[in-house]
């Protein structure tokens, strides 16, 4: 679907802005919202550019920069932190050869931090796209990442 086709699915009411931004981001192969898309959304809703941009920048789940195919969000809230999520983050950074906030060269993964994922009983936790991974260990990290890489190779 083109940007306009996505946007035209929504009534031109300002309360639809978040839905439109999600739809635009999800439809982009690089998991982000382009400036052209932001402009089209502003035009559709009859609001100024900064209104749309301010909202998109307020929420961490929106990105205005290209990202990988898979978005890894590691929980950085207190319970996970008590259970050594920093080791998990280090393991991910090593496994993916990137720093937090970056995207792998092959465009497969982006590593981000997140507020509490609500999985404290099985912390530390992370999400990859819409899927939750709990009770993380460095070994489990390597396993999970490998499974995504294998899938990509198919």
């Amino acid at each position, binding site marked *: 679907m083109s940007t306009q086709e996505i946007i035209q699915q929504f009534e031109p009411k300002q309360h639809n802005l978040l839905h439109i931004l999600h739809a635009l981001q999800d439809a982009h192969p690089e998991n982000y919202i382009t400036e052209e898309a932001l402009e089209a959304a502003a035009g559709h809703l009859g609001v100024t550019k900064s209104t749309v*941009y*301010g909202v998109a920048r307020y929420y961490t789940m929106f990105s205005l920069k290209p990202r990988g195919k898979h978005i890894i969000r590691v929980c950085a809230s207190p319970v996970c932190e008590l259970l050594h999520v920093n080791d998990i983050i280090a393991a991910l950074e090593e496994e993916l050869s990137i720093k937090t906030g970056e995207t792998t060269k092959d465009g497969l993964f982006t590593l981000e931090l997140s507020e509490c994922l609500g999985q404290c009983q099985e912390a530390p936790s992370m999400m990859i796209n819409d899927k939750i991974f709990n009770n993380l260990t460095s070994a489990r990290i390597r396993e999970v990442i490998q499974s995504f890489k294998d899938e990509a190779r198919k």
Partner: protein
Amino acid sequence: MNKQVTITIDNQKITAPEGANLLQVAKDNQVAIPHLCYHKKLTPTGACRLCIVKIEGQRGMVASCAVLVSEGMQVTAFDDELEEARKYLLDYLLSEHNEAFDGSYSDEFRELVHAYGLDKAENRRFPSIWKELGYPKDETSPVLSYDAAKCIKCFRCIKACDEVQGKNVLSFTNRGIISYIIGGFDKWGESECDGCGECIQLCPTGAIVEKPHRGEIHMDNGIRKVRTTCPYCGVGCQLELLVQDGKVVRSNGVEGVSPNDGRLCVKGRFGYDYVNHPDRLTKPLIKKDGKFEEASWDEALDLVANKFSEIKQKYGRKALAGYASAKTTNEDNYLFMKLVRTVFGNNNVDYCTRLCHASTVTAMLRSLGDGAGSNSIEDYETSDCMLVTGNNMIETHPVTATFVKYAAQRRDAKIIIIDPKWTPLVKDAHIWLQPRLGTDVALLNGMIRVIVEEDLIDRDFIEKRVEDGMEAYEALKALVGKYTPEYVEEVTGVPADLMQEAARIYAKAERPLIATGMGYSQQVTGTHNVFCLINMMLITGQIGREGAGLNPPRGQNNVQGVSDVGASPFTYPGYISVEDEENRRKVAKVWGVAPEELDGEKGLSTVEIMQAAYDGDIKGMYIMGENPMLTDPNLNHTEESIRKLEFLVVQDIFHTETTPYADVILPATAFAESEGTYVNSDRRVLRVRKAVGPPGEARQDWEIVAEIARRMGKPLGNYQHESDIWDEIARTAPIFAGISYDRLEHHGIQWPCPDKDHPGTATLFEERFNTPNGLGKLHPVDYAEQSERATDAYPLILNTGRILYQYHSSTMSRRNKALTDFANEAYVLMHPGDAENQGIINGQKVKIISRRGEIEDIVVKVSEEVLPGELFMPFHYSEAPVNKLTRDELDPYSKIAPFKLSAVKIEA
């Protein structure tokens, strides 16, 4: 509603209206509670918390900006605990703040920091952390810079843009401590910002500051502030000019006074640099052997006086004529008019109003007896319905438009736009009717028929206030009978249901205003268009009270005033006819001349003067501050006419397209170098004050005019100061009788003001119209097809108009970098369908040809702003003189030229 209550602040008893804002009440009573985020013009934010107070019966400290006063309220504004809390809050803000200060702006935050002793590091408890926060600077705007490290996130700029200017261009980005203000996608220069600078004016720190002259300005180093009136459009915004080293270096809006209450547009705030431009004329110039040579004033003035006298002697007194100027003061124009009438000895004096609102004024004079706007600018904010006809007010009267947008955005007023071209106000409009060019009479007659058919008329009003009452109405009713919705849709292209809804909303509204512009006036049927508006207004009784009436916003700073002081071929100061014996006697008495010396025959109008020059009847001409070689219609004809003159004097501040044809050029002063008054669109007489000296030997216009008269042997009077001239105007024109300079010190006064104790008149026609019998008059008029229409040879219809960033022939506006940075290139708008048909792409340069002339190298902007078959071009640019294409076939009543409709063809 406005019940008065008594409250106590720190033991001081204060009376205030119930429900008033506590912080504002305190401020108004000299209790200076510190605050940063609050501003009188904005809704309270409660972000800075500095305005905390204690209120008996309420827990803790509350932000006084968010409290409404009620009877018996006991307030503590200052005690040790409150002061300690304020200091803590300031200290906290300071830790995230870059304190570097270059002295180029006023800084409320810095003043408070000093007042609380926090400028000394030892008094602070928080370390400075702003450097670690990575705040950006945005320098992308042509007119302002934003420094997030100096921003305290008080919301004032966001609200200034949204609530005051109705633009909502600014927003926050990010969250928490690293949030900051953005325009557009974090690039101010690529946002919708149009540079009005309201955000700068309301910023309490140095976060948003003007770019021009920033490096030179030192606020505490001998800066003078001079209050005056803006030299651009007819809103009459009150400016405070900052003068340093004899040069205007900044312009702010004056808060708290009408008409603008501190608001400005980009021209008012950034358009003053032309005053100090090196191109200014500084010495009289005399053409010798085809070349201009500098001359002394004596030499130039003697030559002018001798030549004019010679022409008068040789060809008779009708052989001379003058163009007055809508840009100069009332005093300048009054003396100019007096020179033409008493020294030239005829009534051949006119000015650009003939090219602008003459038709509106003619229709209003015939129907209502006054040609000026009937309401105050404030009414635009409180009206519940605005019918905006042929009026791109966001670009032409940006500050008036802020009131209109406020009404639409915050008071649910319904805006109805009639315009063949899209204008930015359409975004706020309830209905946009888009008739084909030249079909307005049919559209309005259709609306009147709806009102008649649905019985939405005001019988009582018609019977009491309209000449011949219901009989006249029946005649109108009979005429509009054939304008059925189907017929009107066929002629105009406007969907019948939209036209019907618009008519109903207007007729049923409580306080409907009509704001009519050039789109209605600059047509062959200009007077008819406005007759139709007045017909509709009179049968619905929608005039003669606050918020209801007819208003033509005037295009230039003093168009209104120049008419008012009588620079017209038909009327003396105060709209009294030159053809009336009794008037002539009265005026002659004030002027101390014999009545028979005043010509009892009306003079020639702007375009007629040029035609008479062409025919050899006018031999000598005096042009003050006008540029007919760019702004008159059918320029090729104008050029031939001007060339035929034996002697032409042009008085201006720059060389213009007209000066090359002059025999003598006289250098005049610009607005910031002049004293006097202007009259704005809502009839407000406003003071103009001298802020800086003139360049070189330039003189104020009236002094030059008076010298020429003296040297022609007929002195105009003994004037020591501009106020002497004004006092004579007040003696001549009854509408100004009660106005004097001392009354204009702080506020303008709206005419008519018949005596010294009269407060001025906000609303016209409340009791009676200004016609001889006091009644309004209906003028039923039929739609007639235009003589100029699209043909196979000239298949497109060209419309012309203005843009926000340029002004008139752009001799002033184009000499400001800030304005040309925004817009500096001519273009023609073309509908995508037409572009495709003609194989023209966006950005391509074309030639445009009409039956009268052609212009080349015009960039096409493909745009849905215009209808298929129609084009639009701004007229400001001398390299793209669109008036080579326009017609001088005049509206028979007002002699206005149809700038809005020319058949053309395009060649790639």
